[in-house]
């Protein structure tokens, strides 16, 4: 095995071009499990922890650019007020030790349907910035996941950053699992209100081969919400929204839960989170992680 230690982003891209089979590693919270248990024997490891360009974030023209290597702990502490949905989701990742090391880029790279960071990116119309020596491109989060644990990256591309707008309205994230901490999701749901364009964004996790949105549910609720006068949410609307979210999913039965339970839990989470964010919106209060 070769171990590549680029000291700059340019060097990292050159390393990836020269070793397309190299597995990128930052926090190692997924890769090292594979190596420790002999499930993964990469021909090369590309250590990105020495690439300073990856661990920062910036804000310009009403968009945040979050470096792929920013650890969850820093994301929560430094950006929790701007991206509350993502911060809530980040808090549910692993443990304090894991969050100190784990990164959004690594989560995206492994592309697990259960990845906690994915649904909030979908709900917020995030763009994934990927780059190779050939150039840079932005992939909408909705197009990034191509199958179970598969993503849209080309062989020589690396994830550089995530772009998303700071929250203009309340956001929420909800997760069902076997316990309160250190748990792989049975299913997750993220919701983001975008009052500036009178739209609701959603994200579903661990209830389909890939994370996904619930477009029919979004269209339904966009039409039903009274953005002008901010009237209380009708219970029937919340209930119907939950049903439509559940219908958008295509869950499986597995060791963590049954398909039926996942659909049920999604409907409940969708109904609740919609009520929470709408209530916050009506009262003018922004929920923070």
């Amino acid at each position: 095995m070769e171990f590549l230690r680029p000291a700059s982003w340019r060097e990292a891209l050159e390393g990836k071009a020269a070793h397309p089979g190299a597995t990128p590693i930052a926090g190692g919270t997924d890769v090292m499990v594979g190596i420790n248990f002999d499930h993964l024997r990469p021909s090369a490891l590309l250590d990105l922890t020495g690439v300073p360009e990856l661990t920062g974030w910036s804000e310009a023209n009403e968009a945040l650019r979050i470096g792929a290597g920013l650890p969850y702990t820093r994301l929560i502490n430094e950006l929790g007020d701007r991206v509350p949905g993502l911060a809530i989701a980040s808090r549910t990742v692993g443990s304090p030790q894991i969050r100190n090391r784990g990164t959004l880029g690594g989560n995206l790279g492994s592309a697990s349907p259960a990845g906690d960071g994915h649904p909030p990116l979908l709900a917020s119309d995030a763009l994934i910035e990927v780059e190779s020596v050939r150039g840079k491109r932005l992939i909408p989060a909705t197009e990034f996941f191509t199958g179970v644990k598969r993503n849209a990256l080309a062989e020589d591309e690396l994830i550089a950053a995530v772009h998303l707008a700071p929250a203009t309205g309340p956001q929420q994230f909800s997760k069902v699992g076997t316990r309160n901490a250190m748990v792989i999701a049975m299913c997750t749901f993220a919701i983001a209100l975008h009052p500036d364009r009178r739209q609701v964004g959603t994200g579903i996790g661990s209830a389909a081969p890939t994370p996904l949105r619930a477009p029919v549910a979004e269209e339904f609720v966009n039409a039903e919400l009274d953005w002008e006068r901010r009237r209380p949410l009708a219970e029937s609307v919340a209930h119907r929204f939950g049903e439509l979210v559940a219908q958008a999913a295509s869950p499986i039965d597995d060791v963590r839960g049954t398909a039926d339970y996942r659909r049920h839990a999604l409907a409940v989470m969708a109904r609740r989170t919609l009520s929470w964010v709408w209530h916050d919106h009506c009262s003018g209060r922004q929920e923070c992680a």
Partner: protein
Amino acid sequence: MRLTVTVNGQPHEADDVWEGESLLYVLRERLGLPGSKNACEQGECGSCTVYLDGVPACACLVAAGQAEGRDVRTVEGLADGERLDEVQAAFVEAGAVQCGFCTPGLLVQTHDLLNRKPNPSDAEIRESLAGNLCRCTGYEKIMDAVRLAAQRKATERKAHA
């Protein structure tokens, strides 16, 4: 590779290190520091928690190659010679040690918590230790120990103020 790493304030070198082996393996098998425990190798039990460049991390999930040139502090580095750190002393006095397998990770994590939040609420203690599994104590003595250590540190700060 030849690995150069600072551990508990001392420079160390290890030869014939495979870059993909874990930092935990390096500490235990190459540097003779068995304080960090190997119980799960998947970052779930927290018994291998060490400071990596001042931040608590599971040593089993750090590739040896990533540790090159870094600063590591293990549970062995908490004491000052024969003098236990307040956290260690509190764990002993509160009876928070039983088989002791989880203790090294808990000590490092508690040490970090109290440095960041000198007076943590019970909820903050539990959240901070969510990544440290214990089979024996049932956690209550651990909670007692963390509270005791926090009290002691507060008393010490007042004495120096």
